[in-house]
């Protein structure tokens, strides 16, 4: 194999695929990327961790010999990063080595044969639909912060996607860690009817989100079965991310979304966010609890810390129900408020121990449920 590639293209491509590769691997070839040069000048770069694989194509300046080889992903990425901007990088594989040449630099890297490189068998992916890249990016942004990181409840370690028939057919994305829940609803895309319920793992979500940065206004093609999902993105050359899905049952989350919370608080999400952020400065690292006192048309935020003293701040708000005192984890509250774009946010409360519903308004596609802390 011999190919010459512009450094910027190679670097961008490697930056996408290298984060798929885990830093430590018991199987040596999983540390490598597969580089495949075709006679027509197209070079494919592929990385995998056995659960997730990303393939990206780029145009080479020239391909003088078709072929394929695997080399260390992180080494090649670090080299490409340090090569001078605007240079052309020549990759040539021979005698179990790959030579990387650019300007006056020359590297010779150990390789492993391409035939040993594992590829995810996709099988049949019967459900197929398209989503604008921007919509998919928003769907991820609005929900991913609530994904659980507690590994034993593996079925919470991803974003749950399912279709439902309400007034109109919809596609919903949901994530929860048992303390908060985020849900994002969009119209059901053509082709998604009858789609199996799937849980897309956290790492696949993170890698996909990175690729979406490059996708601009294009559409993303999504093909899936009950066990695998494939995202095909446009952009230059094209990027394909294939992931196994989490084999588990997501809880029936709709039952924790409160429908009868009668106390409505409305306020500016930014001043609320900043107020919470300020008083939480003195909260101890472990609990991060902020007490919220609701009175007629005002909110009093306060924190009492045995080590750091006390803090309080008043935030103007619209509230007309009976006074209520409720505690929240400041970081959770900030996570959610950070997702609200508009000038007001609605908090629907019941009592100090019940799930609180947070949303921009009743027409917003995103909805959040936050459990309070014991005050």
């Amino acid at each position: 194999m011999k190919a010459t590639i512009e450094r910027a293209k190679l670097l961008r491509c490697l930056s996408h695929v290298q984060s798929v590769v885990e830093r430590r691997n018991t199987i040596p070839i999983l540390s490598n990327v597969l580089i495949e040069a075709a006679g027509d000048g197209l070079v494919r770069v592929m990385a995998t961790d056995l659960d997730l694989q990303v393939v990206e194509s780029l145009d080479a300046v020239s391909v003088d010999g078709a072929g394929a080889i695997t080399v260390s992903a992180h080494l090649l990425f670090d080299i490409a990063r340090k090569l001078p901007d605007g240079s052309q990088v020549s990759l040539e594989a021979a005698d179990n080595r790959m030579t990387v040449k650019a300007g006056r630099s020359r590297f010779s890297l150990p390789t492993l044969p391409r035939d040993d490189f594992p590829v995810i068998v996709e099988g049949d992916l019967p459900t197929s639909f398209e989503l604008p890249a921007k919509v998919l990016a928003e769907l991820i942004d609005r929900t991913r912060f609530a994904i659980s990181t507690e590994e034993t409840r593996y079925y919470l370690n991803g974003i749950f996607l399912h279709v439902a028939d309400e007034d109109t057919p919809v596609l919903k994305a949901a994530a929860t860690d048992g303390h908060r829940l985020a849900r994002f609803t969009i119209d059901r895309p053509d082709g998604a009817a009858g789609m199996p319920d799937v849980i897309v793992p956290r790492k696949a979500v993170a890698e996909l989100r990175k690729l979406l940065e490059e996708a601009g206004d294009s559409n993303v093609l999504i093909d899936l079965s009950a066990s695998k999902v494939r995202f095909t993105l446009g952009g230059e050359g094209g990027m394909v991310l294939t992931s196994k899905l989490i084999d588990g049952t997501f809880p029936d989350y709709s039952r924790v979304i409160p429908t009868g919370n009668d106390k409505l608080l409305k306020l500016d999400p930014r001043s609320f966010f900043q107020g919470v952020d300020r008083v939480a400065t003195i909260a101890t690292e472990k609990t991060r609890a902020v007490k919220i006192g609701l009175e007629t048309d005002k909110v009093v935020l306060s924190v009492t810390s045995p080590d750091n003293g006390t803090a309080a701040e008043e935030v103007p708000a619209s509230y007309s129900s009976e006074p209520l005192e409720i505690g929240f984890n400041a970081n959770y509250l900030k996570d959610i408020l950070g997702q609200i774009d508009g000038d007001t946010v609605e908090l629907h409360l019941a009592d100090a121990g019940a799930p609180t519903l947070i949303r921009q308004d009743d027409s917003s596609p995103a909805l959040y449920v936050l459990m309070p802390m014991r005050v």
Partner: protein
Amino acid sequence: MSQFALPLAVRASGPSRVIVGSANAHVVEALSASEHWPFHTAVLTGPPRSGKSLLARWFTGRGLGDVVDDAFSMDETALFHHWNRTQETGVPLLLIGGVPPWRISLPDLQSRLGAALQLEIGLPDDAMAGDLLLSLAEERGLPLGEDAVGYLIPRTGRSQADLERLVAMIDRLSLERKQPATQSIWRAALEAVHGPQEPRLL
């Protein structure tokens, strides 16, 4: 202050299987032979949460006969008519009688049901309690293994309701603390359900 957990629901479909063991093996056996019941009728009683309705669903699911769930709270005259119809049709009738004893005031019904087959679910032994614990955990999506059974079963009550409360508490505490359900959580759950094991010194 500590975090509350979202009340993420138990799977709506109920348990995926019936755990059979010392408490209910004789009941399952008798239910399977409904064609031999005296007067085509059996009365099933048992402690709260012991799986009476679950067995009733299993019974109708297999087409073994008719079921009247919560028969003890039903109008006795209506129940008596139901019993009479059963004598005509010959389709086996299983009555769920709640927690024993089931006091019946209508003398006719009392004598008829007195002649029916009496089935009572008992308390599980260690082996069955362990199986129940794992089944209850699975229903909640709570990862719990054999080591948990070995630790918890000797330390908790034997009734089905106790086991259910314990599993719910482990689930809640592990969600609240965002920690895997390991021994520290088991211990805290036992303490929350049964009170502290020993008086604290300090």
